[in-house]
């Protein structure tokens, strides 16, 4: 997948786990938590969805890369390049 495709995957996941949020003005450079009501259980949902959909295993030590859209896409790009 290309970075734009990965971004869309994350948007789709966020729409499911935060259905009350308006994601149309999401700033990719700013952390999710500053823009949305997301807690640790929600981040685990992102990890779980990626595991289910793409069999990507994200170790706990790498969760810090999932802070913003830009950092998430950057982290996932090598992992999902063949997906």
């Amino acid at each position, binding site marked *: 997948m290309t970075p734009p495709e990965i971004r869309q995957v994350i948007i789709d996941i966020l729409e499911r*786990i935060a*259905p009350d949020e308006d994601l149309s003005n999401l700033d990719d450079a700013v952390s999710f938590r500053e823009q949305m009501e997301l807690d640790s259980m929600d981040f*685990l949902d992102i990890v*779980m969805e990626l595991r289910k959909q793409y069999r990507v*295993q994200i170790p706990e030590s790498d969760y810090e890369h999932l802070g913003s859209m830009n950092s998430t896409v950057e982290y996932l790009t090598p992992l999902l390049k063949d997906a």
Partner: protein
Amino acid sequence: MSGDLQDRNRVVITGVGLTAPNGDSLSEYRANLLAGKSGVVPFETRYVKQPVLAGVCNFDEFRYQKRKERRRGTRAGSVSIYCANEAIQDAGLDWGNVSKDRVGVYLGITEHGNVETENEIFEIAQFDYDTKVWSHHHNPRTVANNPAGEVTLNLKITGPHLTVGAACAAGNAGFIYGLQMLRLDEVDVAIAGGVSESIHTFGIFASFASQGALAWNEDASKASRPFDVNRNGIVVSEGGAICTLERLPDALARGAKIYGEIVGYAMNSDAADFVLPVASRQAECVRLALKRAGLTPDDIDIVSSHATATEQGDIEESRALKEVFGDRPSLAINNTKSFIGHAMGAAGALELMGNIPSFEDRVAHATINLDEQDPRCELRQIVANRPRHMEKVEYILNNSFGMLGINSVVIVKKFPQELGGVYA
């Protein structure tokens, strides 16, 4: 029973919120009970090959709950949040100024957690049983206090909350527990009742089917047939009924409307069998509730029966009622399950609430689908198929029994309108 209006042991019902398969408010539900309208419909459930019927609720989950809250929580939590919010609004409580640490939530449940566990097993089965895809939401969804806890999260209640696991006696048990906590002065408002999400587990249908106790009828509305010779088992339903309970002096002080006073209650155990009921213990439970209320059997106007349309259950309850109440013709015995099926943890609470408006209209709602009464259910006072007009309705007695031999009875008295009673 005391006549003292300042007696802090007197507990009254001041608000009602409910969702039933045939109504999402007390007025809609009552109207459909009087009109003979069933809420039983064909229902799809995972794995079970035979056709299944169920009582399905259609309340708006998002009236009081954000979509994210709903996604995180359970159907039982959603039912509870809807009913609790409706009850608080109905009670006219000035919620912003209510001390939330003095509010308790006590909800009866038959079971909890089966739905989420079945869902997770189904999910991991798609991944070759890899438990790494087992949801981190499983534990908070399946802890036994979940439905009551979701109510506290939604309404920012900081007082105590818990569920009361009491099989199908749970609806009454929720009311009883709330009343006891008010009498102990643990809380000032008890949000109490019963809820059920059971139709969302295939296991309950499959288990009743294996037991030979799952109802079926080509016409879904005719499937739930307590006391009828052609009954063939239980229709499983979901639902909830939750009331605000307050001590009488507190209710009077704030000018609350009062639906009725809980004047008697009892719980006991058969200590005999996992599933089969025992008439003599049920009769003891009814008598204990009457004794605590300072009443005799002749004082009761309506008995809301528990009968689920299983062979032995209906017969045993009939024996118990006959033993206590005899053949007095002025008594009305009815059955709400004939309309809505068996709402499990919500059953006792919904069935009591369906009868409460009788204080106003003096009508005992019917037991529908009673075409030919089983002669082994020797009750002459069953209100068959059409509502019965009553000379008076002062006392309603509500039976609710469950597996492992758990019995519960609640007696509600009409409250005088000149003192704040809702009903004339």
